């Protein structure tokens, strides 16, 4: 029908016009929730078109003014800039809150019982920990791979989080059953959070060494490949041992919070199993550093074992 077509055409035109009219100025200060922008971009008679004079909304809501009109294509793909600002503000506030909770849990692991049980933070905290650990591991992977070339640095950067998180995925079910049989009988969600806190402790320890490893990698000559390998192995070992203390205290706090007994065998078995699977995974996902003369490949053929390789490297060194 011609009338419908004309109406549809009008609706389509509404979108860019509405978008242009509702366009917010670029400079919005995040720290100032009242929405007042500084007068740096325009002076005097410049009036800022504010769609929200009361300041950004704390929670993202579907803008009600679009509910009266049902244009085609649907307007949900078009958002006001203030909507993005609300999301960013809320995200940053949540992230900083989670970061402070996480840091407190790492620095005072004996008080992290309630966090693991789940009373302090919701399910989004698990995703935050996952992302934070991935970022820290990626930074260390970058420092490892930069020895060969920039591309190898990027590849190692991507592979490192997978190393630890895949090891955790492989080990999760035995650890859950061990937790039910030997240790505090945490539920699946609580076990996931406990293990993620443990992984993030390891990530924090590794990430703190990242700048030093970066320095060594960037200032090393080609012949220092074996030295670097040994340094990385030692660093991984120290980070693991350092994080084991944090992990043991976190496990103990979780058990104490639920008033259930915890046997030390549980923590030792956890450490052994994770170390075992982790070393095999690191062998499978090699190369990490990349010898200078050899062209860099994403993965080498599966063969041999981790211990044998370390033995060989120590002999060469």
């Amino acid at each position, binding site marked *: 029908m011609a009338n419908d077509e004309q109406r549809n055409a009008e609706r389509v035109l509404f979108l860019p016009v509405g978008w242009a009219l509702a366009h917010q100025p670029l400079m919005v200060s995040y720290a100032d929730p009242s929405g007042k922008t500084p007068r740096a971009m325009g002076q005097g008679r410049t009036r800022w078109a504010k769609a929200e004079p009361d300041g950004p909304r704390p929670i993202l809501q579907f803008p009600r003014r679009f509910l009266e009109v049902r244009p085609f294509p649907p307007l949900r793909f078009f958002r006001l800039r203030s909507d993005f600002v609300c999301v960013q503000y809320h995200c940053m506030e949540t992230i900083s809150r989670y970061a402070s909770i996480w840091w407190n849990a790492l620095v005072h692991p004996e008080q992290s019982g309630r966090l693991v049980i789940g009373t302090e933070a919701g399910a989004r905290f698990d995703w935050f920990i996952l992302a934070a650990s991935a970022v820290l591991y990626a930074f260390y992977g970058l420092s490892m791979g930069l020895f060969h070339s920039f591309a190898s640095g990027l590849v190692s950067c991507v592979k490192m989080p997978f190393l630890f998180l895949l090891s955790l995925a*492989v080990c999760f079910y035995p650890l859950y059953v061990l937790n039910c*049989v030997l240790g505090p009988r945490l*539920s699946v969600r609580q076990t996931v959070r406990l293990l993620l806190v443990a992984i993030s402790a390891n990530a924090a320890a590794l990430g703190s060494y990242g700048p030093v490893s970066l320095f060594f990698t960037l200032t090393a000559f080609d012949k220092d490949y074996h030295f670097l390998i040994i340094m990385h192995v030692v660093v991984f070992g120290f980070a693991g041992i350092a994080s084991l203390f944090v992990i043991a205290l976190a496990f103990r706090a979780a058990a104490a919070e639920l008033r259930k007994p915890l046997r030390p065998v549980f923590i030792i078995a956890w450490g052994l199993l994770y170390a075992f699977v982790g070393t095999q995974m690191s062998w499978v996902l090699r190369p990490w550093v990349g010898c200078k003369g050899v062209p860099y490949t994403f993965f080498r053929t*599966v063969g041999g*074992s981790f211990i044998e390789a370390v*033995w060989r490297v120590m002999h060469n060194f």
Partner: protein
Amino acid sequence: MTDQTRTPKPEERDNSQSNQGPSGPGAPVFGGPARETPPPIPPPIPPDGSPPRRPQPAVEEPPVCEAEFPKGFWKSADYLLHHPNEVLESLHRDKGLVEMSKTLLVITLGMAVIYGAVMGATNLLQGSTMAAHEKLLMIVITAIKVPVLFLLTLFIVLWPIYVSNAFMGARHSFRVVVAEMLAAMAVTSTTLASMATVIFFFALTSETYDFIKLLHVLFFAYAGVVGLTSLIQYVRELGYRARRATPRFLFFIWLLLYAFVGTQMAWVMRPFVGSPGEKFQVFRPRQGNFYESVFKSLGKVLEEKPEKK
């Protein structure tokens, strides 16, 4: 002389500057500053002379009921893992044991099937010389063999355990002993199935058959130890509740008996994984010994390193 040389008590010590001594006001005061409140009174010693107990938490634990297994395989396995006290209560009251035994049997067999499938899949993942249909058949056959292994071991071991229990310890009825053993077997096979992911990962990424065989033996041993520990705890707790004697060294004998019967049964029912050089067979001819094979594998795995150098 004693008045001047004895160390001053906390309430007598004077923290003014003149009394600090050569270390000065900033130095730590040994023994702590003077107390404002008196130290807390320790808890009274009970009249029978036993050592004073740690104060119990204010939250009372809910009373333990009989076990009620939910419907569903995974849910009932999870229930078994999370509520051993309820299972113990059912065993003690001797109620609903037949239904519980059926559920536990299903859990045992199901978990054993899972682990058997992963065991048989080793050949598929490592690229051995067997034909493709033989590899799939291996998975099915091993998935049938592992639960049968558990069942046969249970049947063989049940009678000596019942009789020794009757003679030397808590005299439970046959139904209770069967249910206890099935609960222990369910815990064993659940623990075993939990290692399936680890074994799958190692089968995918390592090429040495002997190493994987040793891993299997290790995981079976670990699961057996866990299951027997839970059996021992059930028997001991039931003995305490019925105020009957609890056998001590008998538990060790049960452990040995279970280990021997289990290993011999596994050797008789081999192959589970299938050596890379041998052809496909459902059962191999009776040759050698389980322990001989394990020691040979150990030797091969340990000898690998100096040879490859």
